[in-house]
């Protein structure tokens, strides 16, 4: 009996401590855990991350393909929420990763459109994640890859043309949908990008550019085989400039289950100012595509390219306006004068050393007396 009582007391005490500890800790352990898990997921290139919403843990699956966003809540019951264009009754996202999208998860709209299952969220993530590429292909048949902005620092001469951005549009192989670059209406019509001055301004102005040009290319590089599609001018500095390719005809078409390369170039004005420099950046979803068969809702694709001071293009040869540009050469200079001065001063020093009493040996009365150089 005494043992039983003792056990009861110990049990109550231990369980009380455990409950108190649980209440005290709650989900606080998630704070250090979530960043670590997210970092590991990033390292593994997995489109999954964790978010803490109040005391809840949110599993978010963000597939690269399409605009779907899958969220699962670790709570008493698991809410599975598919937020997609025309799928869950939600409006199309302006950005697949926006805070508004996450907040939608907590709205009744989202919950009503959600499916509720009593399954571990990670399992849902795994199961639906496998199905998601097929589902997203049904919604959006195109996406981009290989977006390339500027790399390093290069120079372009006045009047010349230089590649500033390239991308590849992929047709995700849904036979019912034809993908074409550029769309007729709404939001992003063509290709948007932003030309900006460096952080330490160089004085870049719109007049430094003749226009921006869009080409259909066989690869990601501008060359003579590329087909001109459209141009845009004037070029905005520090704001979006859009090139509209909708009148480019067959060049717009992305082959079924294939891909098409597009290159954007900047044509520098012959009257540009040397020393001006510019960066190139894009926002997320900067490319409009027409997807016939999807209905009236065209797609917007493209990933962000950050403008970076370390990657920019310098116009001309430098601040001193030089015809045709070219790098500034900075020869050491003064070699001829140095040669003359070295030889003459050396010879003079030798004469001084030979006749220390009289700097000018020709004034000495005794020619032999000025030779103090000794024989070792």
């Amino acid at each position, binding site marked *: 009996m005494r043992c039983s009582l003792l056990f009861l007391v110990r049990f109550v005490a231990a369980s009380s401590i455990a409950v108190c500890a649980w209440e005290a800790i709650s989900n606080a352990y998630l704070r250090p855990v979530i960043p670590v898990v997210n970092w590991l997921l990033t390292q593994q290139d997995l489109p999954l991350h964790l978010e803490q919403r109040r005391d809840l843990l949110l599993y978010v699956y963000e597939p690269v393909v399409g605009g779907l966003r899958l969220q699962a809540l670790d709570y008493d019951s698991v809410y599975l929420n598919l937020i997609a264009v025309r799928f869950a009754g939600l409006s199309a996202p302006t950005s697949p990763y926006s805070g508004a999208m996450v907040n939608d998860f907590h709205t009744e709209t989202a919950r009503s459109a959600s499916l509720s299952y009593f399954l571990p969220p990670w399992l849902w993530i795994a199961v639906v994640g496998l199905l998601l590429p097929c589902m997203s292909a049904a919604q959006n048949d195109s996406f981009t890859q290989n977006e390339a902005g500027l790399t*390093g*620092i290069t*120079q372009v001469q006045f009047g010349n043309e230089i590649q500033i951005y390239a991308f590849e549009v992929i047709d995700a192989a849904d036979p019912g949908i034809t993908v074409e670059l550029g769309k007729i209406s709404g939001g992003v019509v063509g290709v948007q990008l932003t030309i900006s001055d*460096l952080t*330490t301004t*160089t004085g870049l102005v719109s007049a430094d550019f003749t226009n921006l040009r869009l080409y259909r290319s066989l690869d990601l590089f501008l060359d003579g085989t590329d087909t001109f599609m459209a141009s845009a001018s004037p070029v905005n500095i520090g704001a979006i400039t859009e090139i509209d390719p909708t009148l480019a005809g067959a060049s717009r078409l992305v082959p079924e289950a294939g891909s098409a390369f597009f290159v954007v170039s900047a044509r520098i004005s012959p009257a540009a100012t040397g*020393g*001006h*420099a510019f960066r190139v950046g894009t926002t997320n979803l900067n490319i409009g595509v027409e997807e016939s068969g999807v209905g009236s809702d065209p797609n917007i694709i493209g990933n962000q390219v950050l403008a970076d*001071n*370390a990657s920019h293009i*310098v116009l001309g*040869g*430098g*601040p*001193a306006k030089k015809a045709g540009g*070219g*790098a*500034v*050469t*900075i*020869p*050491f*200079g*003064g*070699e001829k*004068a*140095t*040669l003359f*001065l*070295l*030889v003459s*001063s*050396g*010879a003079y*020093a*030798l*004469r*001084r*050393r*030979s006749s220390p009493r009289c700097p000018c*040996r020709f004034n000495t009365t005794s*020619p032999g007396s000025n030779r103090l*150089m*000794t*024989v*070792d």
Partner: protein
Amino acid sequence: MLTRLASHRPAITGGIASLWRRISGDGLRFCVMFGIWLGVTGVLFERWRAVWVDLFMVPVTSSAVLVLNFLGLQAQLNGLDATTGVCQLVLENVIYRVSFECRGIFALFLCLASVLAYPTRLTHRIKGLGLVIPAFLCYSTFRLVTLGVVAHHAPQHIDLFHLYVMVLVNIGFVLTIWMYWVRSAGTERIPR
């Protein structure tokens, strides 16, 4: 007349001999040796350009880039040609095309030829080489850094600086280091 000339003959021949001694003295020897050493350095340069690239050009330009970055200026080295040593020192809004002559290697050769040609003890010449070479490495780096700073803060004055100001500074630097060494060499006896 002839007798008078004959009586002056020793004086004439002595004068010629004296003049020759004067001409063929240390000054002429220095000039000749200077020319020879300049030729030697030129041959060495032409024959082993790649070595000069590694020993002089890369250290100077890389050091300049490091210093410029340390000073908070964006600078980078582009397209270094291992044979010609030509590269681009890329700054925020200016690109310098840097070749051998930009790093002052020919001025270095002049200074080296002078040190080697100057008639003094071997140990003193070695000391001279030990003074001139590091000094040139430092100065060439300083020069590129200075032009980088000018490109950042006063790009409109680049031409003024590298065509006039830096040329005067270059000559002043070479003469200063040369005269310093010659003055110290002047206290030593000349080996014959």
